[in-house]
């Protein structure tokens, strides 16, 4: 990742992996599998993490971002997290992003609070002109796509 004096402090803690042979995301399941890939098996049901896929105009995944485990997408932190996320997305030439989070239990259907948060995230993307194409909640074997559920 390129650093400059303008980078907010938190951005430095987001790790980024760029893909030489980007794959196209056509279905929510593609996004889910992209997010799940290389996720630490041991951590999957123990630590909640957020990751994001950066997509180009042709829906190809150009990079994957991993947030440190301390990052929690809560109402009070969401603004600054999203601002960092969009910053990194823009500097890497992304047109869209997909956000994913693992669920520690079998419950992948979002609570009302999670649904409200998802709307905030989607709206933030529209404001920043980087659409949030989908948000995925998942475990090692299943996923919930906000897009498929009408968001």
């Amino acid at each position, binding site marked *: 990742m390129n650093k400059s004096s303008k980078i907010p402090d938190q951005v430095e803690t987001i790790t980024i992996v760029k893909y030489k042979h980007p794959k196209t995301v056509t279905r*929510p*399941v593609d996004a889910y599998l992209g997010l799940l890939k290389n996720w630490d098996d041991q951590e999957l049901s123990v630590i909640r993490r957020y990751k994001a896929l950066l997509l180009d105009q042709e829906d190809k995944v150009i990079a994957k971002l991993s947030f440190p485990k301390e990052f929690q997408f809560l109402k009070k932190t969401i603004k600054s997290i999203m601002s960092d996320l969009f910053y990194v997305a823009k500097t890497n030439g992304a047109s869209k992003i997909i956000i994913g989070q693992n669920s520690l239990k079998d419950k992948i*259907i979002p609570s009302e609070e999670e649904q409200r948060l998802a709307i905030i995230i989607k709206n933030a993307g529209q404001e920043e002109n980087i659409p949030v194409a989908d948000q995925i909640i998942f*475990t*090692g*074997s299943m*996923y919930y*796509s906000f897009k*498929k559920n009408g968001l």
Partner: protein
Amino acid sequence: MSKTEQSRALSYLELFKITDQKYIIGVYEGGQTFYKQQIRALNIFDALKKTGKIPENKNFRIAIIGGGIAGLTFAAAALKSKVKVSLFEKGTRTLHIQAGCTIRDIHPNIYDWPSENCGEKDTSLPVLDWTFGKAADVVESITAEFKKIVTSAQKISPDCYVEHLNVQNLEVSDLETEKKLVIDGQITNHKKSANIGVIADLVIYAIGYGLEKGVSDHDFFTESYWRDTSIKQENLIKFNYLISGTGDGALIDLFTLLIRGFSYEKFLEIVNSNPKSTALMKSLVKIRNKRLSGNAKDNLYMTEFYDIPSAQYEYIIEALEEQDLFSKMGSSVNVYLFGHNKKFNDILNYKTISLLNAFITFILYRSAKFLYGPKLNKANPEYDGKPILQPYRIHIREGTDTASVIMSAKFNDDESKQLQRIKELQEKSVEHGIVNTNWNQDIFDRYFNEIKRPSHSLSRNTKAICSVFTNALGSALADFHLSKKDIRISIHRVLNMNGSFFYQMITPYFQSEAVPIELHKVGNIYQLERGNVGYSFRTGIPLWVKNNDNKVFRSMMDELGITKSYAGKRMPKTILTIPILAKFKKNGSTVKKSYSACNAVVYLDSTDIDFFDDKALQNLIIRLIQNFADSINYMVDKEDIKMGLLDFAPPQSKRINEIVNECVIELGDFSNLVPGEKSSHPIEFEQFYSLEM
């Protein structure tokens, strides 16, 4: 596993295979009983394991569509083998069709009549076994055991079982790049619905046969077989009863209407109560054999029934009359059966109807207790060209709605073609997938732990021996399992380490569910002086101790050097060690029987002090170990496994009764295994097998 076994498993799977990753249970098979669905599920699971379609991969996940008895049994077998499962059920609970049903009994073997086992009320299944009873009770007992299996599996892998209830609109699609499948479905809870996706490696469509045609459409005349309480009337028949359908479901309703308090058991009691039954049974067995040949004409039953001299069965009708078991009809009311065929003689197709139901129908027909007519006109019922007058009740039993079951699974064109092929194969099949109920050990949870042992700890040949042992153990475990008692069993080998001899545990404890697995002990090495196993190694003599007296037992444990290892842990009350001897070769000399020494020891224990007292069990254990030794000898002979030879001089050892009080030592039937004793038959390997580290 032999190639024959594998190819047999592959050809079995053809009856159910849609694609390499999709299989279907139910829908097309004849023999639609609760128990038979379980047998199919277990057989399919077993065949998938044997053919490697379910590989040894801890992340392998099976999606099971349908939480009926087939789906649940398959799930239980998979979870027992530590294969992950995601289960989808459209209802609010599993087994929802039979749950809460107190009007129908479920019997595992009754439809096998006149086979000898037809009265057997227990299923003797390795998972989810149950005993004859009301459907509601059977369901509760199965559900309770399933929960236990899930809880136990989740202790090892929390995500091994995920259950999705209230699921609709399931769609399965391939993820070609990943060789996986994605199952999309809609879950509705409290009027809210959500779409979810599940990834799996294999899909089992356990979608069953569906409900009776018309039930889901809320047809006025139709109530599910499992819910229709009106048929179980105890009062006099006051209406004309019109049953449409000639399958097993329709016939059971016919019997329930015509015979007061009808049950198969009561009927068979009457059949068997007369000496004439011997001749009748002979005639019926002949019919059954013709049926099993699968080459007969569809109307085999009736043709053959009419050939039976009436003197052979008239006593049944007389007994029903005498015992006042025929329902009392109101004046001018009748029970009518309506089917597709013009003649009654053609309705009982032997390919779809059990011999028992056909025979009872025949008896009732001969008693003139009902009338048969072709095709029921529901709006204006007629019999023999004349209208049937009110009041009447219509019961539609025209089979289940398999078409809508298939529709709901949303198969693509290629899959639909394959389903047609399955249908044809099933129609030709006489067995309908009910074959070989001798499942191997795969469905027992120990199997997984055996093959998942760290690969570095044992050589390929030793693994082969373990595998043979677990195979031999499979059937025996089923019997132990049935005894519902606590048992552990393992095998130990002798090791030469730089000229010193030790013994090593080479399998984990295969054990009943109540005891936690002690995997870590696999590979542990002990001195020959130690423990009951060490004793059998040193002497070549079986040792059976019982903890009749705690003090004496402890003193023996002290002598054997194993008191500490049981401190604070599960304390067995009886221990049995059985040596497997071998002719041993000393300094290149020719093999002589007198130079036999102990090569391996089988260890068994139980917290049930009487466990080994059962003579039948003693024989079973000896047979199991003998089979194991024979298999190893055979495999070495065929060069399936290779063993080195070892010079091994057994250390001198005192007899156990010189060590501790004799009262704790019992040899019972195992004394036959003591070498050198009169009429002894020690279990032996052909040669001494050295198993390199």
